[in-house]
């Protein structure tokens, strides 16, 4: 056990799984870097250094730099997975799904079903998402709701270094195609992470806080924000359960419903654009299945329905803040109080 960053946790998961299973290969743009150039090999180790050092362990046969050709190599990952490898493909920014989505949602996601169950597609697409990097509209989106919409895909959104390592190991061992979302602002976040390999099962929510008054559901970077908000309102005597579902698909709706039945109030925090996102999805499910338990209207905390802006002044307004989550929690408490009165 030692303190590791989100970046180190992911690197360690990749290294340990590649050591354990010789069919695991890594591919993507500049996952090593410097290919064909005169200078340093492993020059980048991924654009933010996440895969740095793996080349020296596993060599060019398993650490596969690709040209900038997302359809080509994401499709190649799908074809490799269905024929016997366990590829981990890095789609540098999830915003680039636009140039390879067919290979993900029409091919990889559907092989098993279309082929009557006689195929398995154990591939992982690691991809960066999220705002806060001053990276503007084409490098900052969340987009996991789009993947969550597709049957056949699994969608993993880790919220901390510990979670990232265990969930990535599970992703690699999983026999279905997995989209693994890494928030680019979280790479330097550190916490205690076991040195040994471990897998966190999918579809099993983490109860980050357990309280009595309000259930807050959040994903990825928003989990930490939600926990901060919960700690802040605790000083005012409001006790919150904070649920990190870990995976958007499969979704541990059972734990969310169980918690809402205990607290009677729900706030869902989602960094994705507000229409048809995970917040609306979870809110609809809770409204449909646990309406009688609700003491107050459900609150959703999401960005505005606008592209992610560039200017720091605007981007900071765009991303859901701890203060906005706190306000939503307080609003559900006062709404509930009014209704009770």
């Amino acid at each position: 056990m030692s303190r590791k960053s989100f970046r180190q946790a992911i690197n360690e998961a990749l290294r340990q799984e590649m050591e354990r299973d010789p069919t695991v290969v890594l591919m993507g743009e500049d996952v090593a870097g410097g290919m064909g150039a005169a200078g340093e090999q492993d020059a980048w180790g991924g654009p933010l250094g996440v895969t740095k050092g793996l080349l020296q362990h596993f060599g060019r046969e398993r650490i596969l730099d690709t040209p900038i050709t997302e359809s080509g190599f994401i499709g190649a990952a799908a074809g490799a997975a269905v024929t016997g490898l366990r590829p981990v493909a890095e789609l540098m920014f999830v915003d680039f799904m636009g140039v390879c989505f067919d290979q993900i949602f029409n091919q990889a996601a559907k092989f098993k079903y279309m082929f009557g169950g006689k195929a398995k597609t154990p591939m992982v697409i690691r991809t960066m998402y999220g705002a806060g990097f001053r990276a503007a509209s084409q490098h900052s989106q969340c987009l996991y709701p789009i993947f969550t919409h597709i049957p056949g895909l699994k969608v993993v959104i880790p919220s901390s270094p510990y979670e990232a390592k265990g969930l990535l190991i599970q992703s690699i061992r999983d026999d279905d195609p997995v989209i693994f979302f890494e928030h680019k602002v979280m790479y330097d976040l550190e916490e205690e992470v076991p040195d040994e390999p471990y897998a966190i099962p999918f579809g099993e929510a983490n109860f980050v806080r357990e309280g009595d008054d309000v259930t807050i559901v959040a994903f990825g970077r928003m989990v930490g924000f939600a926990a901060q908000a919960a700690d802040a309102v605790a000083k005012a005597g409001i006790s919150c359960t904070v649920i990190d579902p870990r995976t958007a698909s499969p979704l541990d709706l059972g734990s969310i419903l169980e918690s809402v039945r205990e607290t009677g109030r729900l706030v869902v925090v989602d960094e994705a654009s507000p229409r048809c996102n995970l917040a609306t999805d979870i809110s609809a499910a809770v409204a449909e299945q646990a309406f009688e338990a609700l003491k107050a209207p459900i609150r959703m905390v999401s960005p505005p329905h606008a592209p992610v802006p560039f200017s720091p002044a605007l981007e900071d307004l765009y991303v859901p803040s701890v203060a906005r989550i706190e306000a939503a929690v307080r609003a559900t408490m006062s709404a509930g109080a009014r209704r009770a009165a």
Partner: protein
Amino acid sequence: MGDITALVMPKFGLAMLEGKVAAWLKAEGEQVSAGEEVAEIETSKITAALESPAAGTLRRIVAPAGETLPVGALIGLLTDAATPEAEIDAFVAAAQERFAEAMASRVSEVAPEPTRLDTPLGTINVLEAGPADAAAVVLVHGFGGGLDNFLFLQPALAGRYRTLALDLPGHGGSTKTLPGTSPEAMAGAIGALLDARGLERAHLVGHSLGGAIATAFAAAHPGRSASLTLISPAGMGEEINTGYITAFLAARRPKALTAALETLFADPSLVSREMVDAILRFRRLDGVEAALSALAAANFAEGRQKIALRATLAGLSLPLAVIWGREDRVIPAAQAEGLAPPERLHLLDHVGHMAHLEQSAEVARVIGEIAG
């Protein structure tokens, strides 16, 4: 100037660097007697009560509930009702200034780290504390536990003994490959540890299944066992609460695991969220689930134990002590009867299955009595 007593963040165990004030059990202005519990402190391992070092009035809470502070930081103070506010303010300011200076000069304190030893059985993870030339005491945890279980007991012994708390195979940082599932097979880990450290003999302390394992080791290697202290040992009677084991293995949600772990303690509030998270995390390590399931299946079944070491224990001739919490809800304290001479049989009030966590000082005293 009235006497002012500082309440500071306590240090529970070797590894504790900081703690969180989980709750104040007294309000400002309330009377507190010496030894009375004033606050609950949550550490990364366990929640425990801060007992007041003196009598007085809790005049100031410096760290409200929820605040996390380094060990030694001022969290509140006691004095008499007559002490003026200004004097209290001055005391707080001075204490905090001194503490800040101390922190600044503190060479980044590091908690002692366990060592991973390569042994013929695989990696054995051990945390050592105490003088290298002192008599050795090996601390053996129970089913699903780990060397962390001795975080209070080990420092209490480390002044006098060379203490070695190990993770058994299948647990913590040790190999997840079991040498076998019987206490006799698992006892190989104790021998492997002693060999790896070049120790011929050690005093053995075993808890629960670790008690059965220590007993098996003493029986197999009488010459290497200087004394034996058993805490709520397994193998000494038929009955056991396998409901606890089933719940422990099945729990996925912190709430469910908390409920299971509360069975271990007379005071359920000792179970901290961090303890629960640590166990959930440990259980996810590759190989742990299989190892724990195999151990449980081999040793326990539907309310009874499959292992019987009472006769083995009776045949041993070495200094022996048995400690059992009267409120043990996992293995009933009635099984202690006749295990050791009456003066070596310690049935503790208000203690459950975890005497070494619940009353570590008393357990250390008993060990000292027989280990010399």
